[in-house]
């Protein structure tokens, strides 16, 4: 009987991920750069929420789109109407790390993640290149990719507005703290 209990306990431990291999943060930065004729503007938010599990190799990020600010209230309002944030408040990504990552190496390491990105109610599979680095503060993640708003059925307003470029440059930067179970 004792052997059974010990065996079960060991199985318990084997299935429980190590605490320091799960990271989470709620104040990452997401930034997009948008181009219109003769003008480029940037919107950003400090409310990017993320979680990375190095045991299961999962990456999960989301942001409440209403927290994005471009420095112009009228433009912000147009953006939220265009993104239909009342119906689709989040942009979110959930995927897996595709490349090797050595958590014991403090150097910045390139990583590729693949998964599903969802915005405006449309989900598409994407691959994103970025870097991850274990620092004393946690796991620092940086990534950049391009988003074609047409792929997500996002139609910018046309009335009296110069049309926005379909391709938006997206950047994220987050420091995720280690999570203790």
């Amino acid at each position, binding site marked *: 009987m004792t052997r*059974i209990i010990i065996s079960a306990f060991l199985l318990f431990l084997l299935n*429980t991920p190590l605490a320091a291999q*799960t990271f989470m943060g709620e104040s990452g930065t997401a930034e997009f750069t948008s181009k219109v004729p003769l003008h480029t503007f940037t919107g950003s938010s400090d409310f990017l929420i993320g979680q990375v599990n190095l045991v299961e190799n999962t990456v*999960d990020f989301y942001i409440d789109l209403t927290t994005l600010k471009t*420095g*112009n209230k*009228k433009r912000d*309002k147009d953006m939220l109407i265009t993104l239909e944030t009342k119906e689709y408040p989040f942009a979110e990504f959930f995927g897996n790390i595709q490349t090797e990552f050595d958590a014991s190496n403090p150097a910045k390491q390139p990583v590729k993640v693949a998964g599903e990105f969802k915005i405006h109610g449309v989900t598409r599979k994407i691959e994103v290149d970025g870097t991850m680095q274990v620092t004393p503060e946690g796991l620092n993640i940086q990534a950049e990719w391009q988003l074609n708003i047409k792929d997500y059925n996002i139609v910018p307003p046309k009335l*009296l507005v110069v049309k926005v470029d379909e391709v938006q440059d997206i950047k994220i930067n987050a420091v995720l703290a280690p999570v203790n179970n």
Partner: protein
Amino acid sequence: MVRRLLFYFFFVVSIIIVPTLDLAAQMPRQRANPSGPVDEVFWAPRVVHLTSVTNLEKNNLDFNIKHTFGVLTNGVEDLFGLDAAANIRFGLDYGITDWLSVGVGRSRFDKLYDGRFKLNALRQKKDGSIPLELAFTGNAAILTVKNGYEVADRLSYMGGVILARKFSDRISLQVTPMFTHFNTVTIERDINDQVVEEINDIVALGIAGRVVLTERVALLVEYIPVLGDRNDQTEDALSVSFDIETGGHVFQLFFTTSQSMTEQHVVARNRDDFLNGDIRFGFNVHRVFSL
């Protein structure tokens, strides 16, 4: 046999249940709730004639053009006032910070130049910790029409306190107690030989309300009763506006009694009565640029 069954039981429990005790692979999505100021109590920095509590963000420039035409009651003869002499004001307002803006403007009537400021001292917060907006506003205007007056005689002023609240996404209200002063006033006789006397100082209360009808259209009402002594033969100004917001622009199409454009002139010079049909059409166009 029993031991083996127990082992399998613990094995299955371990495989199936234990991982769910860990942090879920995908986090539940939760809306952010930044405790910042509420969005746009009014869409534009002006209601119709009144300065609205809405602030200009830092480095934002609001270019605004305002027209008021003649009264509608002249009918088709002057195309409901459109043929009459229009007062026109061009204005620029700039957000120095998120809580302080300054502006200048020039009106056609009396070739009037004005300079203004607005200081947003308190912002209503989304989390309810501050329930009201509080702002201070003021302007100084100088008429430059050739009439032989000294510079000091050409000046007029307005100072006001703006209190406002956005009750919901649809309903906003604002009150603006204000004090106006003209350095020079006149006493004259009208065509009926009645004495018409002006006074230097007038106190008035600007009241404004907004109902958002659709995502892009709102109905505004603005009423500016004079409190206490007033200029002879003047009436309280009343305006009704439809605000249309179209990406960076706010168009305000309004019906009003006053053809003047700065608050002190609206308070001191309006001689038309909305309920008597002395209504004129006008419009404001606001375009906000980020610098």
